[in-house]
């Protein structure tokens, strides 16, 4: 295979890995803080993408045409709206069920995901059809030998890296991050130390959902198209990525995200006859990994007291 094609595959893999990581980090944050699996995370990504699109259409219709401004607005609105949505979900659906069996939270978030997905499909104008997403990043490419580096991809990758680095800094270097980690370790002790548990939970959900919003917009910019079902598979992939990496570990989410993307890319190269099979291949490997290392490649946080 020639270098150009190889670089295309690698680029694609990196982009996918970045997007999966953004979703996986969300799952890991929610699990870390509350020991719950929020199955609606992928669909929050979808709603974020559609919110961004609606913002774009709205602003265009009142005459705004500056691309950077539009991009900024799309991101800001999507992020704020999803952060708010995340907090509402935490406040009204997840926190009330804390004393119920964990299964109930899993089920309620699964159903919530369906509600979000169906609401987009039913209530967004022609939501059942895929919608074109505007190209808000420069589409020129730099020629590096046999490989064309698209500027928009480069920018998105760089942004993704910046976000993850920023998140790590937030968690490890700030008081807020310390509070989040304290709550993730041991809720009771954190409370006795004066940390406002509810506030931290809401903030964590806001952060996770904001990441989903960014992931959704990124997805739209990369594929130039969004559809109501996009979050479902992304959510499942993000969740598996978080698991194989090790639930509760940010590094694990990153590792898992890129690992899954790599598997898909290998699958696509090895089985070119049907793109659906790359997903089957990737999931089969992931399931085998789960069987081999149930707590993840990096240790999952043990929460059961015997």
């Amino acid at each position: 295979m020639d270098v150009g094609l190889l670089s295309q595959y690698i680029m694609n893999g990196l982009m996918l890995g970045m997007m999966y990581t953004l979703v996986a980090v969300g799952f890991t944050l929610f699990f870390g803080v509350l020991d719950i699996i929020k199955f609606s995370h992928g669909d929050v990504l979808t709603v974020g993408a559609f919110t961004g699109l609606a913002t774009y259409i709205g602003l265009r219709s009142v005459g705004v045409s500056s691309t950077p401004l539009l991009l900024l607005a799309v991101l800001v609105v999507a992020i704020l709206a999803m952060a708010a949505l995340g907090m509402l979900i935490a406040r009204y659906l997840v926190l009330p069920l804390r004393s119920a069996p964990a299964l109930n939270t899993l089920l309620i978030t699964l159903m919530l995901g369906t509600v979000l997905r169906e609401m987009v499909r039913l209530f967004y104008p022609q939501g059942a059809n895929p919608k074109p997403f505007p190209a808000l990043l420069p589409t020129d490419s730099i020629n590096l030998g046999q490989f064309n580096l698209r500027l928009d991809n480069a920018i998105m990758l760089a942004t993704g890296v910046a976000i993850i680095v920023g998140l790590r800094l937030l968690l490890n270097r700030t008081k807020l991050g310390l509070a989040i980690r304290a709550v993730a370790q041991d809720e009771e002790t954190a409370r006795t130390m004066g940390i406002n548990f509810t506030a931290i939970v809401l903030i964590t959900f806001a952060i996770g959902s904001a990441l989903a919003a960014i992931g959704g917009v990124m997805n739209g910019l990369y594929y130039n198209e969004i559809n109501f079902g996009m979050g479902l598979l992304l959510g499942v992939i993000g969740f598996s990525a978080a698991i194989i990496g090790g639930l509760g570990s940010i590094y694990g989410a990153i590792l898992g995200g890129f690992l899954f993307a790599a598997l898909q890319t290998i699958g696509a190269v090895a089985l070119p006859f049907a793109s659906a099979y790359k997903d089957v291949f990737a999931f089969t490997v992931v399931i085998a990994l789960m069987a081999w290392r149930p707590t993840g490649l990096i240790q999952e946080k043990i929460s059961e007291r015997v």
Partner: protein
Amino acid sequence: MSGSERMPEVKQEPQAPLLPGVVAVALSTAYLIALLAVEKQPLVIGLLAFGIVAVLAAHYMDWLDPVSRSFAEREGMLSAYAILAACVVAAFFHDNHFVLLLFVTVLLYAVATLGLNIEFGYAGVLNFAGASFFGIGAYTSAVLNTYTAVPHLLVLLIGGTLAALIGSLLLLPVLRTRGHYAALVTIAFALLLKTFLEVNDVLGGPQGMQVKGMSILGWSFNDNFEIGKIEMSFYLNYFVISMLLLCGTFVLVRRLERSWIGLNLDAIRLDETAASCFGLDIARWKITAFVLGNFVIGLAGALFGMVGGFVAPNNYTFADSLIMVSILLLGGIGNPWGVVVATFIVVVLPEKLQTIQEYRFLLYALIVIVVLLFRPEGLLPRPVRRYFPGGRA
């Protein structure tokens, strides 16, 4: 103390009366016939409102307690009455293809959800691909009926077996992990199976395949027939076999729950660590539940394929699996009567209220959210295990 030879004297309580249960069955049957018969939307809405009000009123007048006690202790007799009631409904609509098809659909979905109940409700194995296994059964019918001459009853068994086998392959790797792993694996399977079916033209691709109707020993299930001078819809054939399947499954689920195996499943679901400290082989019982449950789901699916006459990937999606889970949660997880009642509600409602057809995924997801927040035990909560109800224990 003399030990185990002395039989304990448990005070014999008088058995709960049969009448409240019989009255409930009779009234429900009448209501169901009315609901199935009316067509005009305003009438349907009126009837539904009446039904809700009636149930709420009965609840506040404390009429529902005697009914549930009746069912708890006189289940055998009341089941017989329920079967009779179903036959009455079928007889009433004996020449109405649409209603009979709907009724048979309810019966087969109930069977499948009872299978899901064994996995989900008893053993606590999270299976979010129920509809996919149902579909595997249906596709088995399609393929075997089209390409082979395998007798149709055997086709049903093969459909069940295939679903059980594929399910086991899926579950074995994640048996020793936490519950959410099984959830993830089954969701991934549900999503990927649909894509797999769509890209495989051999299985009909997105359009699906036709399924030849059932025929046993030369009696074709797809021909209308006559009794005396009365014309009968051919769906009555399917009604009979579906009822047999439902009754068989109901008995299986009941006996399973009221046995040491049912106890094992509950123990595993509620506390795996403690269960293994008392000798339970977690993997063995989870697999048992999963194989049994999926076999039932596949069996129902195989029959459903023949009833409907065709199979397509779009009928067995992840959203459809979530509908099955919704039925389970709405009816009362672990309670087979709850499953039957909830199946009626979930399947019949969108057919009668045409306006909500489009919204049914949204609607049922919302209903389940409400149930989980305010009444997680469901409409008919599962009672404490009575190994031999109506008698000593």
